[in-house]
């Protein structure tokens, strides 16, 4: 049985990290091959190597049996390899078409032949029922659509080998199953697929074989239909794993956050990004806003925290009207915020760890006297948090945060926000891109916070996180709350239908 791709004994070392160590991966023609592993296990790196973005320090790559050195993505494309990256590689102010043809432009003497391209894209899109509009701007289409653009990129280059890096993280169950069927169709047409995912059920659904990595090392490659999910999970983590989170039933208290008729129009169209949203969050409960990315979660949170200046509606915290408070005033009146984008909002990457830990409190009497910083206190405080929250870094409080891993960056934010014991903790995708250890830990912290009688507003795209953590689920769709559900009496599928807008429930403005 010959392989279309062979990566033999690949080793890749980054400063401080061995991302891959003697990893071997062999891909058969026409198969769907899953690549499983914790965050930081080295999946993306391995694929980046196959795609020519990095050069391996050791090991060889064979395509259709003959050895090759893939020195850039172009070369990879030429070899028929295409990839959908974990962080989409799309130019936001370009149209769908421009993004797709970029790098492989049909042209006459250097002049773009856009019409032809659009036509080709349209037909591809129809063939695979992708429903993309070739002339839409990337910045104006949903994340799901953006991913389809990435897929079209590969099809446009009629690649033989398709790599999907965590494609399902941002999709609804419906979208996921659509994606699955697309993959099946592709593999039927003889295309070979590598699928990176953390989700075993997906692997079970589509994959023929599965290669499992742990801490950069190959564990083994198994036939999916012969291997139980639990087995694979165990291989991935290296120990038995308990799925789900353990937590006591909620002791619900009086409301902390009240949102009434919050509305906000998009500034370049009539479309309402947030439409008459009303809900409340009570002491001792975790309320989760579930929804597909780009349905107004970000705007909603930013309106509550003040990052977006207030438009219409009323926000009260502990019966105090904070609608027109400044960000600072809101923070002080008891809101903690773990932001969606840790690099953009959560951290000053070029400040050291200590500075980032006091980012919300540097002006308090504890850290400043007559405008002069109290360094002794600042660094003492930092050391305490570092030990208390087990934040790993090179030079302790003096580490420049940019050099820390995403996991520890996230821990830094969580520590900073929770230590302030805010009455309302807003956590947006708090575990995005973190390994299970970190995820477990952060989940515990959030639950602990709730058990101390504080309110938690959780925004998450990961359905299992939603199901496991929340005491109440609000589904948001196109800026409206379309359902108010009890996790015990619903399931991922129903949830998915609400999220996709194909089902609407009565919303008790509790």
């Amino acid at each position, binding site marked *: 049985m010959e392989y279309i791709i062979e990566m033999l004994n690949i080793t890749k070392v980054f400063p401080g990290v061995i991302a891959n160590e003697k990893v071997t991966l062999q891909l058969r023609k026409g198969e769907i091959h899953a690549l499983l592993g914790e965050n930081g296990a080295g999946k993306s790196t391995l694929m980046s190597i196959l795609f020519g973005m990095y050069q391996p320090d050791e090991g060889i790559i064979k395509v259709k049996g003959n050895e090759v050195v893939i020195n850039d993505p172009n070369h990879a494309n030429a070899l028929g390899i295409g990839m959908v990256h974990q962080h989409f590689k799309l130019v936001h102010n370009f149209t769908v078409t421009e993004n797709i043809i970029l790098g492989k432009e049909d042209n006459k003497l250097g002049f773009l032949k856009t019409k032809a391209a659009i036509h080709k894209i349209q037909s591809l899109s129809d063939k695979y029922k992708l429903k993309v509009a070739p002339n839409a701007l990337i910045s104006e289409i949903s994340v799901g659509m953006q991913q389809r653009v990435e897929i079209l990129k590969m099809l446009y280059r009629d690649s033989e080998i398709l790599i999907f890096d965590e494609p399902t993280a941002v999709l609804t169950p419906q979208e996921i199953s659509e994606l699955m069927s697309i993959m099946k169709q592709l593999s039927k047409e003889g295309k070979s697929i590598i699928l990176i995912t953390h989700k075993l059920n997906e692997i079970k659904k589509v994959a023929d074989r599965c290669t499992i990595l742990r801490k950069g090392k190959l564990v083994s490659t198994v036939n999916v239909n012969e291997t139980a999910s639990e087995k694979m999970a165990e291989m991935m983590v290296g120990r038995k794993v308990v799925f789900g989170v353990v937590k006591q039933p909620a002791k619900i208290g009086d409301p902390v956050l009240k949102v009434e008729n919050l509305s906000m129009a998009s500034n370049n169209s009539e479309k309402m990004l947030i439409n008459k949203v009303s809900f409340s969050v009570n002491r001792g409960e975790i309320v989760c806003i579930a929804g597909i990315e780009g349905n107004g979660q970000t705007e909603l949170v930013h309106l509550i*925290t003040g990052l977006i200046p207030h438009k219409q509606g009323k926000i009260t915290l502990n019966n105090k009207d904070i609608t027109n408070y400044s960000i600072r005033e809101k923070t002080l009146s008891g809101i903690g915020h773990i932001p969606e984008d840790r690099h953009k909002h959560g951290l000053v990457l070029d*400040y050291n760890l200590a500075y980032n830990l006091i980012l919300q409190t540097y002006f308090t009497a504890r850290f400043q006297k007559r405008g002069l910083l109290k360094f002794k206190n600042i660094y003492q405080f930092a050391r305490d948090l570092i030990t208390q929250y087990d934040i790993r870094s090179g030079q302790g409080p003096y580490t420049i945060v940019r050099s820390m891993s995403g996991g520890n960056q996230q821990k830094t934010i969580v520590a900073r926000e929770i230590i302030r014991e805010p009455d309302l903790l807003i956590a947006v995708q708090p575990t995005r891109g973190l390994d299970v250890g970190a995820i477990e830990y952060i989940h515990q912290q959030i639950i602990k916070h709730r058990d101390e009688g504080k309110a938690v507003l959780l925004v998450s795209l990961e359905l299992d996180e939603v199901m496991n953590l929340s005491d109440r689920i609000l589904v948001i769709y196109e800026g409206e709350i379309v359902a108010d559900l009890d996790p015990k009496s619903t399931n991922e599928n129903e949830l998915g239908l609400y999220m996709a807008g194909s089902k609407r429930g009565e919303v008790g403005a509790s």
Partner: protein
Amino acid sequence: MLAKILNYINTSEKRINIISLFLAIVTGLLFGLVIMIIVSPRDSFPAFLTILTGGFRDIGRVLEIATPLIFTGLSVGFAFKTGLFNIGAPGQLMIGAISAIYIGVRVTFLPAPIHWIVAVLCAGLAGALWGAIPGILKAYRNVNEVVATIMMNYISLYFVSYAVEYQLYDLKNARSLTVAKSAQLPYLGLDKIFTPNTVNFGFILAIIAIVIIYIILEKTTFGFELKAVGFNQHSSKYAGVNDKKGIIMAMLISGLLSGLAGAAIYLTDSFGRHLETTEILIAEGFNGIPVALIGFSNPIGIFFSAIFIGFIELGGFYMQRYDLAPEIIDIIIASIIYFSALLILFRGIIIRLLKHNRFKHKKREEEDG
């Protein structure tokens, strides 16, 4: 020995940078030397020596040249630290200068110390205003500060030309009137230490400015906020910092510093600098940019780079005794700045050196053990 030094360097990023900068400077100088050799083999070496040592003949003069550069360097550097590129230093300097001169010439009823103090303050205020305007435009109208400050440069240029010609004209000498004795910056005994009529209070003020700016940036919550805005406007907003205020304050302080440069240059006797009606931007303004850059926008670094520039500029003046066009100095300064842009290159060299050296260490230890 070398190994020891290298180890010492090795212990800190900062040191590595400083050493690389030093390498860059040396390279720049050598580059200049090469050109000089090409043009005039005979004179090149003694001339080069003069450039390097000439400054020592008159330290007072060096400091005098450096003083305004410290101010404008701080001005540009401070803005850099907060993520703003202020090429408006020339305009802020000139508006400061004209205000100082106006006070110095017209408000003569003030007694000695008060008079020059008021003049200095007004220079600072005028500069601050001139800097604040682009700041406000950026904060509230998203106007790119580079364009705004360029425009402000020309506006002040013509305003100054007007003010000199119509308000403060000294017909006999065809330049601005000399400020009253009571408005001239005092020497405070510095003329005992250095050459008379060179360093004056302006230099002391520059030192004070350095200290204050250093404290603001490194030790205060205000600096904490400004730098945060500079590094990442989003996260500082998230942290409740008023980024608009930050931008405006940064430009205001930046302008104030340049304004003071104006006072430092022009509050002087009839033998010193005077403004003219000719519409030319004052060089010290633009030179603040290289000074800041060579000094890593760090107040202390800026102090040394300003002194350094003053030093080789004076050396270049003395070099004229030889048969070489004085522009060679400008070429040398330019190449120094260019090479300092190639810092990475020199860092690379040094780090390789260090690795090599550490490697040797290991070996030695192994041999010992």
